[in-house]
């Protein structure tokens, strides 16, 4: 009998669901054989913990007495500017926002020690945050200035809304130039001095569901240590990217927009992050359960590091100049061995994505499901797949007429 999400949830409620991580499933399914493993295993849990710039949070801070219209005004949280072009007391804080007085790259490379991601981390940790605001004043919102401490437990809503997370595969960054470069992929030493990569490979959510057969709008997930949901496909979602015979994309492909109540998340899984010479961001922990509804779905979750290829890209020239050239492809097994070969040279590798944290996330999600605390959801809509024809387009610049 074909398995259903409702059937799996029934087993989860009884504490009888068989749950394994995307790392564990590889050997289990090999040992048991695909058909027996597909019958026995109910859920495979995935995890990733990486810097994700497409992250941010909405806050409704409540109305002051007298009222102030923050909308259209200037608002700062711990000196980090937030977006106010929305309703009266709602604001949006982006992960990469920087204080106005941050020297940025004026002293190169800039340190970027504190920004939006750090405010989110401190907010989640329950620390008081300084809100300072100026507004233009209206008849119904007369106040023009506000300075107060706020705390996540007191404000009406704190919603993490990340419009692009959990990239399905990503570039391996190197530097062919003769000077050090500072990028969002970390510090890259000259003349192929190192190679940085940034996904969890075999544990990464979308690499275990390459054709988005189970992960869709409404899928309940582990987000920042709490519960979240897939809200939509992420921006730059590119399902038509080059794929291998196993269906796994060999380039950056699918992405997810995710949402969840920040109040129940934990700072351990939302970490303010600084990239030297580049900027600030937020490192986000995401874990997604994959219901094993068929042998085909199980087979996708069996993907191992050796079966995932990533392109090696020069971040001194090809990336900044939008040139499509790559220097070859390497597998995650190669990357995790500590060295890869690029243009005949041995290059040491390092990750920006924490594999131990990804394992931790997949294990926590597994525990939640085994203990009956976390039920699976049926997606209400699927993500655009290969058949959608959606591609990732560059900006077409056009002159602005007189």
């Amino acid at each position, binding site marked *: 009998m074909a398995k259903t999400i409702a059937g799996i949830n029934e087993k989860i409620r009884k504490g009888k669901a068989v749950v394994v991580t995307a790392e564990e499933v590889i050997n289990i399914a090999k040992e048991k054989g695909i058909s027996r493993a597909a019958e026995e295993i109910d859920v495979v849990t995935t995890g990733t913990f990486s810097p994700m710039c497409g992250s941010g949070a909405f806050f409704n801070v409540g109305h002051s007495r007298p009222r102030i219209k923050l909308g259209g005004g200037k608002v700062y949280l711990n000196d980090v500017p937030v977006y106010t072009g929305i309703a009266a007391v709602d604001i949006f804080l982006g992960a990469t926002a920087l204080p106005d007085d941050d020297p940025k790259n004026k002293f190169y490379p800039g340190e970027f020690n504190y920004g939006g991601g750090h405010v989110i981390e401190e907010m989640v940790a329950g620390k008081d945050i300084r809100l300072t605001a100026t507004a233009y004043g209206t008849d119904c919102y007369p106040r023009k200035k506000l300075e107060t401490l706020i705390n996540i437990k007191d404000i009406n809503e704190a919603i993490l809304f990340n419009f692009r997370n959990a990239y399905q595969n990503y570039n391996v960054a190197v530097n062919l130039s003769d000077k050090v470069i500072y990028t969002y992929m970390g510090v890259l030493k000259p003349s192929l001095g190192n190679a940085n990569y940034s996904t969890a490979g075999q544990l990464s959510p979308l690499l275990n569901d390459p054709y988005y057969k189970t992960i869709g709008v409404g899928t309940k997930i582990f987000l920042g240590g709490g519960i979240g949901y897939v809200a939509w496909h992420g921006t730059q979602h590119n399902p038509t990217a080059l794929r291998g015979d196993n269906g796994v994309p060999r380039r950056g492909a699918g992405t997810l927009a995710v949402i969840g109540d920040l109040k129940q998340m934990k700072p351990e899984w939302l970490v303010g992050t600084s*990239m030297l010479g580049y900027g600030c961001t937020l490192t986000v922990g995401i874990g997604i359960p994959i219901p094993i509804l068929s042998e085909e779905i199980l087979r996708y979750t069996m993907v191992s590091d050796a079966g995932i290829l990533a392109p090696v890209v020069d971040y001194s020239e090809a990336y900044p100049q939008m040139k499509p050239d790559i220097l070859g492809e390497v597998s995650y097994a190669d990357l995790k061995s500590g060295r890869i070969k690029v243009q005949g040279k041995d290059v040491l590798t*390092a990750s920006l994505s924490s594999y131990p944290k990804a394992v931790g996330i997949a294990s926590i999600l597994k525990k939640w499901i085994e203990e009956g605390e976390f039920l699976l959801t049926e997606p209400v809509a699927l993500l655009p797949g290969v058949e959608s024809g959606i591609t990732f387009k560059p900006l077409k610049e056009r002159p602005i007429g007189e």
Partner: protein
Amino acid sequence: MDVSRRIVLHFPPNITGQPVVYRLVKDFGLTFNLLKASVSPGEEGLLVMELSGEQKNYDKGIKYLTETGVEIQSLSQDVVRDESRCTHCGACITICPTEAFSLEPRTREVLFDHNKCVVCGLCVKACPPRAMILHF
């Protein structure tokens, strides 16, 4: 018995012209690993080094330095890892010139070998969650 210590040497201006480190190597059989150097002729000089060798030679070397007029301090600067901030991503591994960071092969956690650290500080700013801290 061999010893290995990290020390800070302050050279008064009148001896910056002397081959002091050469004498440490040649006369006392000591080895050194230079961590930091700031020496200009006619000005006070500063050398930070790890000095190693047999205890009795080490003691003789230090005596020689003191007699020459070099002021010696033990190294109070140190790089430590804030374990509560480290996410074990591994960004530091290829940045460190002395390979003080390595991956535990099974768990893929990042190990920090304090003994290999030469306090250059490169990891401090390259660490995305800023878990590496320079202590003075």
